[in-house]
């Protein structure tokens, strides 16, 4: 375990948990994640059983000859997992990335409608 962790820190970018808002509306759950600098192509969203994992890499390509005076953010990797409940319709999850904010929409499963069973008369 420690070996794996060490290996990761050596070559991987620094990892961050993106700031996340989770809220419920009439139609379902909405998740907002701040992932500035992340391109659509550098993002992956995986759903494995009840775990929804979002990973994204923010790339910084400085212009050659650029000298930094102050650096408060940089290239990094965003990782966050969220466990989702059974009332979420897994097939209908939608994601959109706009202005560095990932929005996930998790609709609720349609309630099973009660059904009357008709009895066939002999």
């Amino acid at each position, binding site marked *: 375990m420690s070996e794996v962790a060490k290996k990761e820190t050596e070559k991987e970018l620094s990892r961050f*948990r993106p700031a*996340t808002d989770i809220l419920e*509306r009439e139609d379902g759950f909405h998740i907002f994640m701040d992932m500035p600098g992340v391109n659509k192509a550098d993002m992956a969203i995986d759903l494995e059983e009840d775990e929804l994992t979002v990973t994204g890499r923010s790339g910084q390509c400085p*212009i050659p000859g650029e000298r930094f005076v102050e*650096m408060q953010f940089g290239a990094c990797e965003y990782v966050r997992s969220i*466990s989702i409940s059974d009332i979420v319709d897994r097939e209908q999850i939608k994601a959109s990335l706009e*202005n*560095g904010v990932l929005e996930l929409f998790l609709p609720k499963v349609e309630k099973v409608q009660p059904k009357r069973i008709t009895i066939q008369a002999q």
Partner: protein
Amino acid sequence: MVIDFNTLYNFPSRLDRVFEEMLRSPMGDDRRLAYPPLNLSNDEGNIYVRAEVPGVTIDDVELTLTDKTLVIKGERTAPQGKFYRQERPSGVFHRVVNIGVPVDRDKVAAAMKDGVLTVTLPKSEEVKPRTISIDVA
């Protein structure tokens, strides 16, 4: 972590959580600086000011260039709904950047990409390095 209505947790994934919790939050600890975080850099011809402002469009940002400062102003609005978790900052932000060298005010450009604002301030001609040829008499 959040929308947990499940009662049965499978243990290995919980263990992952412990490690995940250890990951730093971009708003936490060493990064808890003035908002928004800024990168300041320069090269031969330009000064670059970059700011991480996810969810903000270029129209929502107000940039003011005064004599020696660049002022970045804007507002982030929180979405509406019943919150389970709210970590994303919202409200008005305001940052002042001191610009030490004279800039070409008419050629200042700003762009927004993936939530990162980049302001390019070209340095004035008079401060750019120049080679002066000396005629030897």
